[in-house]
């Protein structure tokens, strides 16, 4: 099977780098950036299957970033994460990103991988 390519975007470098490392350890090709400009730039050079985006990143919401990345690569799929983990956010996010693509921090790594596989299989 082809290696899954994932781009992680979160302004917390500590979080996003560790997550990328853990995903890499599980055989996933994970890149990470801490802002949206870098994310767009990354997409210029590489193609990703999936983006895992924080809802609250500086200057732009994760959902808007998702839309912008989707314009560049219509095949790309997304999972959103938030620290504002209320059911409301979950609902609002689900409405835009589709059900189940919206996770609350802290996220269990195994659960995240399960979700990533689910989305890509669709």
């Amino acid at each position, binding site marked *: 099977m082809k290696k899954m390519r994932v781009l992680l975007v979160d302004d917390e470098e500590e979080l996003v780098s*560790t997550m990328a490392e853990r995903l890499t350890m599980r055989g996933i090709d994970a890149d990470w950036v801490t802002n949206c400009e870098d994310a767009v730039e990354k997409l210029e050079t590489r193609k990703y299957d999936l983006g895992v985006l924080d809802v609250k990143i500086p200057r732009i919401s994760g959902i808007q970033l998702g839309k912008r990345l989707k314009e560049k690569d219509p095949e790309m799929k997304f999972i959103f994460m938030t620290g504002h983990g209320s059911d409301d956010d979950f609902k609002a996010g689900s409405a835009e990103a589709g059900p189940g693509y919206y996770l609350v*921090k802290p996220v269990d790594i195994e659960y995240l991988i399960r979700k990533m596989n689910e989305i890509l299989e669709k």
Partner: protein
Amino acid sequence: MSLWDKLNIPLGETKEVAPGTSRHLFNYRRIWKSVVLLTGGVSLIPLIFITLVNYGAMQHSIESEFFLRTTRIASNTRRAISFFLTERKAALDFIVHDNSFETLNKKERLSDILKSLQRSFGGGFVDLGVIDSSGFQRNYVGPYSLEGKDYSDQKWFKQVTESGVHISDVFLGFRKAPHLVIAVKGLMPDGFFYVLRAAIGIAPFENLLTKLELSGMGDAFMVNHEGVLQTPSRYHGNVLEKIRLSVPEYTPKTEVLEEKSRDGQDVLIGYRYIDESPFILMIVKKKDELMKPWYSMRLKLIVFLLVSVSIIMTVILGTATYMVKKIRIADEKRVFTLHNIEYSQKMATIGRLAASVAHEINNPLAIINEKAGLIQDLFILKEKYAKDQKLLGLVNSILNSVQRAGTITKRLLSFSRHLDARIETINLKQTIQEVLSFMGKEAELRPIEITVKVPEDIPQFEIDRGKLQQIFLNIINNAFASMNDGGHLDIKAQQEDKNAISITFTDDGCGIPKEDINRIFEPFFTTKTGQGGTGLGLSITYNLVQEIGGKVGVQSELDKGTSFIVHIPINMDEGRNE
């Protein structure tokens, strides 16, 4: 006892709706008093003033009308009496000039003259006598035998010799009947004189005076200057009796005066001294009788005033009470709304604070989660550590703690969300547990035992979750406050019918006294004055229950406990199968 207490104005309970310095603005008794005094003063003072002025003017006008009328009658009657006397005096004067002393001494001639006089002048002339200058009655015609009488030492005889004419007081004299005498002096060619003297009965005066129509139990009579009655009177004595009133002072005009009679009655006296005679005409009226029409008018005036005053006061009292009551209710509503807003703002602030704290904590928590996860990954992948259960245990413990902390932050975030009204589908049991989790620590410490019985078949339903949680929280808070340590709280839910569920909160706390039970949902009703109670908790609860379309009831027994029952409508069609 103040006016307020006496009237017991139903303004409702006076509640302290404002603290501190602005309290005087909410003194409804004072507002009520000011309104009543001001409007009452403005409307009653002019009314009373005008009525008093009117009263005085009417009384004065009626009194002067009676004065005037009495004066007119006295004046007219005086003219008639004067005319009567002057006429008779002139007749006698004519006789002495027309007849000589000798002729008059003839009996037949004198008798003829008397008859002529009686015929021409009507009643009055009783007899005629001719008296010579020595006072000896030389000739007499009349019903008595008075011929030869000597009048030389009589006062009237002396007066007539001096002034030529005399009108006497009324007296009995030799005739033994009340009469008066008119005497004129006749001169003889030899320079001697004689006197023609006529006795006149008082019947014509009586006729004249009794014919007068006098109002006010009026009485018309004549007195002499000593106050002896010259004609009979109705109420003031008989002829020749002394009058029971004082003799008025001489004036040349007709006068009216007010006097108190000897029996204490106010009388109106019109009088006139009749010129060239010893008589005073008096017309006496009883003031009480005269004023009778005025008294009835006065009574009407007073009744009118009293009725007007009572109508005005009733309207003022009613209006003031109504208005002040309205103001009080409006004030209370306003203050309640302010409290409500303040309360929701406070809750919103707490919620926002909780949300931002939770969010801020969630991020480092996520990092700890990832770092600990990485450590775990590394341990599992490296054989050196994979079998070290202690290290793995430590990492697991960190991850478990992160999970616990995550649960707390999620709860805080969920709480903040209550403040925005939003309809969503909820699970009743879960909602109750969420609320209890806020009280968990207190329940554990005191301790208070809480049992929750929610049947599994209660469906999920759509409701404003924030409001529902607020209602539960307020009722549970109240229950906690009423219970001693070691108390029990039972929360029991049950489906009433297809469209409604009820949740009963039963505590074994202090209970609510009977007299308070109807008032516990009123705003500002509190038994915890001075202990931080605002009296708003249950009233807000009541409002919230109404807002979600439900009902709240209470049953309580003093010292045994209280049950709050919340009935909630549920929408089955949308609530099921979520």
